[in-house]
């Protein structure tokens, strides 16, 4: 199996990388670049929201900080956003460290509303700081390349960013740190009793989940080449991050990829069919339905079906051999289902 899977995987990765240079229409290059950006954002939202259950509604603050860092860096100091992007991440980390400690003491909706207010505050601040262009925003010079190559560059950068975020989440999920986060979601007090440094772990997750949007925001600003407080600190983007992650299944590294792909591509397609406000109505309803029917998102739902089927097959197979049926087959699915409920957000 791995003998086949490896070359196939390499081929797929190669195709993804080469895609913009294979003569694809510019619309699709742009579309996929946007998709990767959303995967990166949804994944970074899920680092905190998916694993600890602290639902931040203010991650767009970090995105906006990155965007403004890049915009000011390029328009005032003439430094390429590709160089200032890490700086955008760094500023986001600094802000996350400042607000994270006091706000992560708040649970549930209190935390959500606090982060939402911080996003508002950032928007008001940006609208009224003349160095940041105030309400007019900032115009960024575009890349000195032909349009097709420019789009190709952004495609690759967003692809790399998405890959890095997803890879980090995947590694985190299997680490001690990831387990500590899950423990916090299950029961914060119990986690603390068992020796998880709750404050430090939450802060670390918050900082990580702030760093990536800062970087992504910087690249986005360069791509879109004009930012203002309403687009850079758009509360709607916070909603999208949450929706995409929850839809695909926050708390699984693959969840935000699936969720961002489906939600983003659906919304990009629906734009042609129905008015955009109905689009949003639909996504509100989808969020409601997902929480009702698939609280672990699509990936969790499929995984649940999969384990159920596997358990079914096992019990079918063992029923022909009645001797070890009760001992070997019955307890296993029980254990797995337990693990399943534990992963629920």
């Amino acid at each position, binding site marked *: 199996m791995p003998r086949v899977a490896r070359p196939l995987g390499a081929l797929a990765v190669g195709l993804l990388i080469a895609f913009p240079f294979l003569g694809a229409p510019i619309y699709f290059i742009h579309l996929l670049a946007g998709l990767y950006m959303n995967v990166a954002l949804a994944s970074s939202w899920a680092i905190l929201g998916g694993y600890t259950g602290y639902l931040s509604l203010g991650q767009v603050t970090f995105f906006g900080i990155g965007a403004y860092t890049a915009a000011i860096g390029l328009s005032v100091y003439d430094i390429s956003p590709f160089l200032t992007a890490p700086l955008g991440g760094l500023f986001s980390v600094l802000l996350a460290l400042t607000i994270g400690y006091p706000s992560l003491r708040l649970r549930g*909706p209190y935390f959500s509303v606090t982060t939402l*207010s*911080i996003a508002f*505050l950032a928007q*008001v601040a940006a609208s009224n700081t003349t160095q940041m262009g105030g309400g007019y925003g900032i115009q960024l010079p575009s890349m000195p390349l032909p349009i097709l190559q420019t789009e190709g560059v952004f495609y690759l950068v967003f692809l790399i960013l998405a890959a890095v975020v997803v890879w980090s989440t995947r590694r985190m999920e299997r680490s001690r740190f990831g387990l500590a986060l899950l423990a916090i979601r299950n029961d914060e007090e119990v986690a603390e009793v068992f020796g998880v440094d709750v404050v430090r772990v939450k802060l670390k997750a918050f900082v990580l989940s702030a760093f990536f949007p800062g970087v992504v925001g910087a690249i986005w600003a360069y791509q879109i080449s004009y930012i203002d407080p309403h687009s850079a600190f758009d509360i709607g983007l916070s909603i999208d991050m949450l929706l995409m992650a929850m839809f695909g299944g926050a708390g699984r590294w693959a969840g935000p990829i699936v969720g961002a792909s489906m939600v983003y591509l659906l919304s990009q397609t629906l734009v042609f069919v129905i008015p955009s406000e109905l689009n*949003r109505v639909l996504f*509100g309803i989808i969020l409601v339905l997902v929480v*009702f029917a698939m609280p672990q998102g699509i990936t969790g739902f499929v995984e649940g079906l999969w384990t159920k089927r596997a358990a079914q097959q096992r019990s079918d197979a063992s029923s022909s051999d009645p001797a070890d049926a009760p001992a070997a087959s019955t307890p296993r699915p029980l254990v797995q289902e337990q693990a399943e409920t534990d992963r629920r957000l």
Partner: protein
Amino acid sequence: MSTLSFPLLAQAVVSGILFGSVYAAIALGLGLVWGVMRILNIGHAALAILGAYLSLTLVQAGMDPLLSLFISIPVLFLVGVGLQRFVVESMQGRKDAELHTFLILYGIMVAVENLQVFIWSADVRLISTAYSSQNLNFLGLILPMGRVISLAMATAAVATVFLFLTRTKMGRAVRAIASDRQAATLMGISVRRLSRVAFGLGTATAAVAGLSLGLVSSFFPGIQIVWVSKAFLVIVLGGVDNILGLFLAALVLGVAENVIGVVAPAFVVDFVAYVLLIGTLMVRPQGLLRRAGP
């Protein structure tokens, strides 16, 4: 910006009180639901704006704004009962009930807001009537009629809920649920039925809040998120279980905003409000007026 003179200050205080009464009306329902069910209905202000649009439509059809309440209050009451019946109750028993309820209410907020954009467009609206352009002259201060009516309505809503909770048997039962759900069940209170009533009452006040909002200031669907955070600020400042504290906090916020608005550029007002909200949440999440608690 202008220099601070006495008449100007007095005018600011008065319009601050008028504005504050709207804050009180919106925070009232949010606080009631929060206090009884421990649920933050983030869509509350979206429902208030829905109430404003209902009233607007009825007023445009020639109805008196106060009469429009006879339609918008029952509609929003039913919405609240439905939310309790179909959302809150079906989430109960889940491990992450609080989280999931919040997410669903969030999804409903997004849907309701954008449905409003679809039906009524994102244009800025104001509910105006024949008498809303008239001014009341009180001791040299100019009070627009619409705002006075709005103040009266908001105060009446707060008083009604206050009297309901303190003077009626049903209201006492609701308070019993708020203070100890399990004990209330043991005392023979129908927690399920009264929770529906409480949620319904909470959203019904959003109808009144919406109308008084529409008479006082312009509105559009997207503004709801600002109002809900202001209402949340009022609750955080005034304490959840304390309706009079809530009313006081709303008036203080309204006056503070208007007075600051006289001496400083408008954005400072928002800035101060958000800093206050974030600061209070971080330092004293249980509210300023409550003595102690979890």
